[in-house]
């Protein structure tokens, strides 16, 4: 995430006022404006604008949950094992309107965070590492460095452009989104089963990908070297990571259990059921070429191609043509394998090439990479970065995610008028209108699938450490002369 890399969204269509009543557009969204024009009828909000964002931060953004998460059980001072400065050592960065990138901000508590963010109204909030000292005061210290950081992953659909025919670049649709679902399943499984992590948060990135935050204490304390080892463990692509052409090579005749499990349980079924038919891999001419190019026997590939060209449609009415051809190919390769051992793994390699998660590994390797916070709004799409339940990721619909405008419309429908100042909540950080909108569900998901367990675990860890320390102190002989 390069500083200053801000994408400007189309500015939202302003809410239209009756020109007779209101001729000062600047006053549109000003909540503090004198309530002279109460009777204005608002039309639906659309798109994205800083003004709408202001409403979002004031009424909807779940500051208390964010802070509960990032505090990892540390509360103010019940006893010395609690680190009351823990949250304040966390870097929060903001991207402001006009390409302004503000790094190394930090907050004492949810109120302070809410106040600052509402005042600066960022387009995007990024979460960085926990440092040895308050990053906002880093210049006052002689040493400044990251000490903790969630293990994070970033999967972006643009890395799949060579294997999808439905859309390119920033677009996604129901035909390519399964690729993300596959990535979630494979990575989530490895994180839990192989690496033993439990507190894993998956978040929709707001446009065309997903982010993953592994929050177990052990994960937060990984060194860069260990992070690199994990990314290598996950990686199956040959060559450099920015290599556009994603070649897979499965060396050796036996796959590591992690890979064979992923293949058996996720990749192959998803390839046959979803990717192959939906991407038209063996019907679309260019796709056929791309796929057959992965067969390490040119003559054979030519032969197959010719056969398909001449044979026309051979699938029965209710069988997918792609699938029929794949079975065809399977038969041929298995037959020819005896003759040409280079064909050994090629079918598996094809499945891997089309479906295995393509992670932006640079993001995962270093502690000091920033990653966009959950519940931000993507300026291009207006979609909120909502959490995804990995156990139910098949049912996640990126097209149905609440947007900035849809949420504010819900609020407006309920309140009648957004010029009404938000009600004073008991705690300043509490968003007031959240419960009236569909964002409530997303925040609940955040709590029930992630936050509640995490917080309980952190607290009991801290308590356990405290008890251990107390016991140790108690058992120590008192020294004295």
């Amino acid at each position, binding site marked *: 995430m390069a500083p200053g890399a801000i994408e400007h969204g189309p500015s939202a269509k302003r809410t239209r006022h009756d020109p007779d009543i209101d001729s000062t557009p600047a006053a549109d969204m000003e909540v503090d404006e004198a309530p002279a024009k109460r009777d204005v009828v608002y039309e639906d909000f659309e798109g994205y604008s800083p003004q709408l964002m202001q409403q979002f931060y004031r009424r909807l953004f779940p500051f208390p949950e964010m802070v509960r998460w990032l505090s990892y059980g540390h509360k103010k001072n019940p006893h010395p094992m609690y680190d009351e400065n823990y949250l304040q050592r966390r870097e929060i960065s903001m991207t402001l309107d006009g390409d302004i990138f503000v790094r190394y901000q930090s907050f004492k508590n949810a109120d302070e965070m809410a106040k600052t963010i509402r005042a600066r109204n960022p387009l995007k909030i990024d979460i960085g590492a926990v440092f040895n000292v308050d990053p906002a005061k880093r210049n006052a210290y002689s040493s400044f460095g990251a000490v903790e950081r969630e293990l994070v992953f970033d999967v972006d659909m643009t890395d799949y452009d060579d294997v999808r025919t439905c859309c390119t670049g920033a677009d996604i649709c129901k035909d390519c989104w399964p690729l993300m679902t596959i990535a979630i399943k494979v990575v989530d499984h490895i994180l839990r*089963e*192989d*690496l*033993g*992590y439990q507190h894993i948060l998956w978040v929709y990135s707001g446009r065309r990908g997903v982010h993953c935050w592994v929050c177990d204490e*052990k994960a937060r304390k*990984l060194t860069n*070297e*260990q992070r*690199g*080892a*994990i990314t*290598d*463990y996950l990686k199956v692509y040959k060559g450099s990571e920015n290599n556009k052409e994603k070649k897979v090579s499965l060396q*050796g*005749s*036996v*796959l*590591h*259990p*992690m*890979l*064979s499990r992923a293949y058996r349980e996720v990749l192959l079924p998803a390839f046959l059921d979803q990717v192959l038919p939906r991407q038209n891999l063996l019907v679309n001419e260019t796709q056929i070429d791309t796929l057959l190019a992965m067969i390490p026997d040119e003559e054979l590939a030519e032969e197959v191609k010719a056969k398909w060209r001449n044979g026309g449609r051979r699938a029965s009415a209710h069988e997918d043509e792609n699938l029929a051809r794949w079975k065809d190919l399977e038969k041929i390769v298995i037959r020819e394998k005896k003759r040409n051992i280079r064909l050994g793994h090629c079918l598996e390699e094809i499945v891997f090439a089309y479906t295995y998660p393509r992670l932006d590994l640079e993001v995962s390797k270093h502690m000091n990479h920033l990653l966009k916070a959950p519940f931000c709004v993507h300026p291009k799409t207006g979609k909120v970065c909502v959490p995804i339940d990995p156990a139910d990721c098949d049912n996640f619909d990126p097209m149905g995610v609440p947007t900035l405008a849809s949420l504010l419309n819900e609020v407006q429908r309920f309140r009648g008028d957004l010029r009404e100042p938000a009600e004073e909540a008991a705690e300043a950080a509490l968003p007031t209108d959240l419960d009236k909108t569909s964002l409530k569900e997303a925040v609940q998901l955040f709590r029930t699938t992630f936050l509640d367990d995490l917080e309980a675990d952190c607290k009991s860890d801290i308590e356990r450490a405290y008890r251990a320390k107390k016991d140790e102190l108690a058992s120590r002989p008192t020294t004295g002369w």
Partner: protein
Amino acid sequence: MNFSNVPNKRKSGAASPLHGDYTASGAQLTMYQVPPIEDVALEEFEQFALDRLRVLKGVEEARSRGRKPDELESVVNDLWRKHMRMGDAAETTRKDIISHYVLRLAYCRTEDLRKWLLSQESALFRYRFRMESPDAQRRFLTESGLPYNPVANAELEAHKDKLLQVARSVAGAGATAESVYYKVPFEDVPELVAGRKVLLSKGWAYVPRDQLAALVVGHFRTRLSKSLTLTRSQWNAKIEAQEKDRLTPVVEALSSRYLGPDYSTPSTKAGVRVADVDALAAASFPLCMQHLLHKVRDDHHLKHGGRQQLGLFLKGIGLTLEDALTFWRTEFAQKFGVDKFDKEYAYNVRHNYGKEGKRTDYTPYSCIKIISSTPGVGDHHGCPYRHFSQDNLSAALGRMRLNRKTIDDVMTKVKNHHYQLACAATFEGVHGAPCESGINHPNQYFDESRKRAASREGDDPTAQGTPPVAERQPAAERASPVTPVH
């Protein structure tokens, strides 16, 4: 020097052999947790360190050539026997520990040096560990406070299939699973995780006995890395100043020590004539020298650093003092006039040939020396792989008419800071033949190149005064005779 001002001092320790249990390397394997506490004579101090340095450089070279683990084991074994073995085990252990600590001092001072030492020492340790018997390895774990125990049979049974699958994925379908596994937090064996060489389950890695080295080396690395940082702050805080007249110069020289032949006597018996220089440069000079030569031809001037680097190199390839004077005068006079040259620069040329001043014969610079130099603005000396910008370097390589693949290869090596390997890759690209010995010295580059030219043409390539055109085909293609097919 007494090392005991380094913390972590314990009275018992590595210097006192435990139970005469000396092993494959003839010395007790140690993690160097306890510094030597005796006084060491200055000569021994330096000699031991140099011997160890020879071992480490040997290890580095063997690794950079991609030797297999088994081959490396025997390389390490030979190097150790040759340079480190003493009369008895206690002596060898003593030398091992002292030399290790001296090199910590010598290599703690910059990030690059620390990295180098960390990498070579870890490799050395790894192969020494691998040579130990299973029993000795287990004992070593206990003695080093690494609390790893073999996994119980019942648990092994539960993972049997997967363990076998991992073994086969690593070593091929015919492999069998090890009988002894250690269960460790996966964080302790990053390299095994990275290579998918272990089974992972719920955060644990099942490390087969034959991969135990990776586990132990991980700890060795971590500890050494921390110690080096510590040593550096102590070096900066006091040792450097305290020892300024005695140890400091020795220690500082150690890290830039070049251990190969010094090329102070010209390598070509026939000598090289001034007229041949350009032809030879095109065919056989390494890039650093080609660059200096171009610069002096273009600018008719070179600053001191460049004059030294090129001048001594030319001396090394056999340019006589007379010819050297002619060479430099021809260029410099165009800019400054003959008088100024004779007055201001000729002395320096004669000096390098030992004809002035202290009358010591100066030796040509090694790659290490050139690479670690710091050319300033207007300087042209240094090593292009190290000191050129990416663009300049790839343009320069293009001018050498290397193909794209070679250039990519060279640039990758440069990116990984392997400058000498980059130079060797260039050599291979230019000569279309492998560079077995690596590049350690510009004069060695030249000699290797001439050897190849001689074997190719069978006569003196400069005899006609035309530059020999380097072949750009791979050696294999060139050498393979047509095999008759029956």
